[in-house]
């Protein structure tokens, strides 16, 4: 089990000290549909501060670098280069922020791509407002957000569909515990429910989730894209 690696996340979440909470969280929305931006904003506006919006890749990078928000809600599909391009642009500008992918897209390839670029989670736009606010809080605290769908995609990616152990076997394989956690998340369990089911603490569940995310981001790029190509995803 890899409980030793929790860079800046769970300690903060536990003490509640450094990361902003609730209404203090500054959010930038990146989505090319004004209607969607308005809709989401109406849902979360009372609970977090939506400080900026953008509708394409370049605009997003500019806005994020200028405002340095805590969380960026990032559409997976964007004119001018899609979600991963935004994350890479912001990284290149050395601006620290957290990305939460928000999409109607069901294509596993797109979702995995944006996670691998560095997003801390993925939720579908059908998510309820309160859950979205919860997810934003979680991402702001440095945690990973696994919707059931994302958990399914990740399990699929690691489930022997492809040999992902070429570059760094230790990093690329999920531990049994991590798989258990992912399975429960895919079954629709919340972190709290996962914790009580496995009789571990919520914090440990968060650690597992973060570690899965990190493995996904570090694993062999070539093999993962082969996986995506193999499944012929649009």
């Amino acid at each position: 089990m890899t409980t030793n690696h929790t860079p800046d996340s769970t300690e903060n979440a536990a003490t509640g000290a450094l990361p902003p909470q609730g209404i203090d969280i500054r959010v930038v929305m990146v989505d090319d549909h004004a209607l969607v931006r308005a809709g989401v904003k109406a849902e979360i506006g009372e609970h977090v501060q939506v400080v900026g919006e953008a509708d394409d890749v370049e605009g997003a990078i500019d806005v994020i670098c200028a405002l340095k928000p805590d969380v960026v809600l990032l559409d997976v599909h964007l004119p001018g280069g899609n979600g991963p391009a935004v994350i890479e642009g912001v990284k290149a500008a050395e601006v620290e922020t957290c990305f939460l992918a928000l999409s109607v897209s069901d294509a596993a390839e797109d979702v995995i791509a944006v996670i691998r670029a560095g997003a801390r989670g993925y939720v579908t736009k059908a998510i309820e407002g309160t859950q979205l606010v919860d997810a934003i809080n979680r991402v702001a605290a440095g945690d990973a957000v696994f919707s059931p769908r994302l958990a399914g995609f990740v399990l699929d990616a690691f489930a022997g569909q492809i040999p992902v152990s070429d570059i760094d076997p230790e990093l690329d394989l999920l531990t049994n515990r991590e798989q258990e956690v992912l399975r429960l998340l895919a079954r629709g369990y919340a972190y709290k429910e996962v914790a009580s089911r496995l009789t571990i603490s919520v914090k440990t569940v968060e650690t597992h989730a973060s570690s899965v995310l990190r493995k996904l981001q570090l694993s062999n790029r070539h093999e993962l894209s082969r996986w995506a190509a193999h499944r012929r995803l649009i």
Partner: protein
Amino acid sequence: MPRLDAEHRVVSGTAAGIAREVGIDPSYVRASFVVLTVAGGWGIALYLVAWFVLARRTQANDPYTSIPKAATPRVRLVAFAMIAAGLVVLGSLYGLSILSALLWPSVFVGAAVAVGLDRSRLDWLRLGELQKQAIGTRVALGLILLFAGVISASFVSLSFWQAVGGVAVAALVLVGAGIVFAPIISSLGTDLLAERRRRIRSEERADMAAHLHDSVLQTLTLIQKRSHDAGVVSLARRQERELRTWLFEDQAMNPNLGFRAGIEAAMAEVEELHHVPVEVVVVGDSPTDPNVAALLQATREAAANAARHSGASRVDVFAEIGPESIEVFVRDLGVGFDKAAVDDDRAGVRDSILGRMQRHGGSAFVHSALGEGTEVELRLPRATATEPQQVETSS
């Protein structure tokens, strides 16, 4: 079905194969080939044709297991053709040329027609993709036989009545050719057209998909979120699903509808019927068989129960296809139920879920408690037809 018989072969196993199928000693078959060859060269042609036909069978279906049985219609036809040919050759040796002048062409034309009609006529006329591999054989056989018929007709010295006979023979040949080739030609044309149409459609769809994917899907999602009318929400959800299916049709339209597609379709139905969103997550995929179909049915039943009775705002379905078993979890956070209190009138659950899984070698567990929601756990071993495992419920 006759095949080459490598075990008893002298040259290629053709004669042995035919003999084994018809149920006579190979020597007779070999002798007929030799006699036919000596008597005019047709033995070689027939041998080559037979070899060609049997060799294709051998590739397609291996290993050969000898099953004693009556000659198949095709074998019978071949046998008839050989006997007729032999008679004609013998006749011509003894100078019965009028007989041969009529027999030769009709034998070959008849054989050509027989090759064309060896399956039921309907089957033959509807030559589809599955039969494509048979086309080569048919064309070759038909060509050889027709050619032979024409050649032998042309060797006939002409008198008036023989010329009339020749015309009749030519007509027969043409009809035979028509029967043999028309379906092939028409089906090739149709296939080409269908293929082109498919390609154009899929290009169009890709263009349109790019266009629709964001705009319309986004709008439908928004409607689902913003509308408080359950009917409108479910309508938008259905539309979204239909559009999505259409957009990703190339992936979804796998001719062998796998487990993944099956469960997604089933859950869409439940959702539509009961107006409760069902979130489906599937890991891996598997082809369907009767057991898997039963698992799908049980899943559908469990999800429908959750949607109908739990009062939960959504149902989560997770299916994982592992190397040894398929596991499905159907979960809701609704009212739950006390097993002890309702056990007796829960015949629906018992029969349609627990019983069904048991009959198909799987197992089912229901976890539920009042106020804490319900989770149904279904498990199906992937090896075929294993012993029924225990079925229990726990709370």
